[in-house]
């Protein structure tokens, strides 16, 4: 650490010393800046304090984007007792730097290995658990039910059916898929799903942890499937200029019929003027029948920083957060799915469909940019974006990605 950073850290910890040194108080840093998550957090904290009257929670709520850089500073300079973050390789840098506390004992003592089973793999590094998940949501294809009915299209279950449906829509002057790739990550969803269907979950994990070269023919096979949608013009044009929200008007106005997205998009679609009965949800179709179906379900988590001052009470908080009651209530407010398999899922047709799909899934992927190392994720998604505009440059793109993989995973 450089002297200046040390100074800054010292000043920060001096300023916050009076609050964080109190016994029976835990400091919680998180990023629930949107209305629903904020309300869910407020309720959670109030309920926790009721259950543990001797502990008070001091909550510092950060802006969603700013949190990503703030966490690096406060984990080293002035760690809180509990911090929000994400599962998968996203937490790996902090685990490797020794900034997160091993919480395997919380899992052990509260029977979480059983109750949070579906997320256990993504919370484990080096055989230890590094945090507690509390919510996730499904990804899949949201489509305009009414348009499908008008065109006489059945929701596709296989790749060939999807291609046939797309051809039919295109003929009717409707672009099959909308997408906005300005913020890169929506391309990751497409790549992941095609990869999960063509090569399977195990290959996804091998690729994102850097064990398979991008020049491998199996990676190329993914892009070949993708090109079958890109070359006939099944995606909206100029997607590189718009964000994921800007892609929704295409769907609302009926210019496009399908959208591969996370469940959070439903709220925006409804805000845009779609009625619930107009929106349908379907699982990403099967490509290779020999590959078991895996799904994307990014998981949000809480962790204890290794520099926390009140680890004992922080562990009580994590245990409470993992309980079926807390997760039921929280996810009802969030409109997402609880991770605890004893919790009740919210009554919502999309979440019910998602819950059913996820509970039958072979495995759950976290999403390309959470499973792959950050630098690789950025380069990869930039490559996907370029591929979606210029599919014939696939070999150049894959060679470039391989060059970066060789460097990132030394």
């Amino acid at each position: 650490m450089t002297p200046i950073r040390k100074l800054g850290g010292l000043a920060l910890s001096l300023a916050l010393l009076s609050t964080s040194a109190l016994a029976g108080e835990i400091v919680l840093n998180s990023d629930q800046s949107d209305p629903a998550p904020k309300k869910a957090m407020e309720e959670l904290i109030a309920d926790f304090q009721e259950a543990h009257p001797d502990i008070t929670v001091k909550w510092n709520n950060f802006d969603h984007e700013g949190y990503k850089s703030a966490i690096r500073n406060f984990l080293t300079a002035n760690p809180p007792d509990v911090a929000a973050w994400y599962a998968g390789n996203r937490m790996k840098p902090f685990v490797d730097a020794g900034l997160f506390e091993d919480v395997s004992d919380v899992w052990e003592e509260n029977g979480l290995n059983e109750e949070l089973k579906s997320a256990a793999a993504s919370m484990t590094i080096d055989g230890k658990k590094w945090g507690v998940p509390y919510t996730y949501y499904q990804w899949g294809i949201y489509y305009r039910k009414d348009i499908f009915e008008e065109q006489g299209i059945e929701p596709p279950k296989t790749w060939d059916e999807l291609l046939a449906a797309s051809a039919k829509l295109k003929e009717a002057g409707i672009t099959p898929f909308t997408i906005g790739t300005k913020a890169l990550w929506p391309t990751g969803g497409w790549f992941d799903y095609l990869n999960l269907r063509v090569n399977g979950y195990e290959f996804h994990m091998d690729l994102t942890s850097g064990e398979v070269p991008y020049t491998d023919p199996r990676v190329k096979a993914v892009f070949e499937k993708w090109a079958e949608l890109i070359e006939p013009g099944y995606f909206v044009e100029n997607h590189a200029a718009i964000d994921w929200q800007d892609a929704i008007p295409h769907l609302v106005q009926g210019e496009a019929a399908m959208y591969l997205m996370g469940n959070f998009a439903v709220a925006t679609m409804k805000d845009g003027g779609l009625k619930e009965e107009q929106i349908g949800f379907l699982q990403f179709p099967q490509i290779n029948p020999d590959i078991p179906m895996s799904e994307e379900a990014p998981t949000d988590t809480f962790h204890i920083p290794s520099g926390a001052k009140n680890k004992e009470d922080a562990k009580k908080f994590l245990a409470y957060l993992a309980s079926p009651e807390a997760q039921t209530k929280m996810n009802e407010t969030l409109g997402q799915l609880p991770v605890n398999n004893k919790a009740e899922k919210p009554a919502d047709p999309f979440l019910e469909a998602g819950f059913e799909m996820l509970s039958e899934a072979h495995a759950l992927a976290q999403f390309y940019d959470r499973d792959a190392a950050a630098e690789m994720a950025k380069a990869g998604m930039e490559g996907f974006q370029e591929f979606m505009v210029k599919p014939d440059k696939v070999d150049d793109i894959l060679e470039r990605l391989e060059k970066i993989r060789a460097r990132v995973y030394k």
Partner: protein
Amino acid sequence: MTEAVAHKRVSRRPNRLKLAPWLFLAPGLLMFLIYVLVPIVESFWISFHDWDGLGAMSWIGMGNYVELLDDDTFYVSLWNNLLWLVLYLLSIPAGLAVALFLNQNVAGIRIYKSMFFFPFVISQVVVGLIFTWFYAPGFGPLSVFLEWLTGDEIAILADERYVTYGIILAGLWPQTAYCMILYLAGLNNINSEQVEAARMDGAKGFSMLWHVILPQLRPATFIALVVTVIGSLRSFDLVSIMTAGGPYGSSQVLSYFMYEQALSEYGYRMGYGASIAVVLFLIMMVFITFFITRMLNQERNI
């Protein structure tokens, strides 16, 4: 006794004369040292390391620079920076033209002046957003116009061929206003007697501008050149707001590339970011040295 005191006082005075300016400079120098010089030295130091901002730094010597030379994005950024540098200079003649146009005594000219001044007042982020909407495919006025004209929809910010020009155009808007202000101030100080004399000698229109007005505006031109060149090299906010360097990195510039590698969500390669910072710093140094030597020469001649 009294003599000794008097003697002491006399001998102290020259010292005080030497000390006083430094005392006055001290706060500024201290700030300069802490916030400018030390970070520059630190950047050089960090650029020789592999560091994620969290763990220990590991020395890799010139490794970051070797990697930079092999990085396609680096060359894209360099080329775009050059485009920015050259095209941004257009704001100087544009600013001059607007200033000449506004330098009239017509009723209501103040309103026009403030309208031209407006883009400089609003934040670059807002400028970026306005132009993003302006270019937006589907409903942006420009793309609607282009579609009507050519029959094809052109999404400026999604097309690697046009994207950098689109962003530079957005940048020219406030920068032209800035140059205009500098020239308007300069025009206030024009020697009216010289203009009268030239007019009697038959100078008019362009020859008046070229031989009489422009030479008197030289200080304004110089400042406009300095701020425009530096401004073009540190172009960051517009790139960040309008495209985030995309599509697929084709609108990258060095300053945004540096931010992305060092501080963005997918970055945290402090060493690599620092090496880009060093390169940008060296490029800037070329211009800054040139400007400062010119300024010193001019001051000496006066």
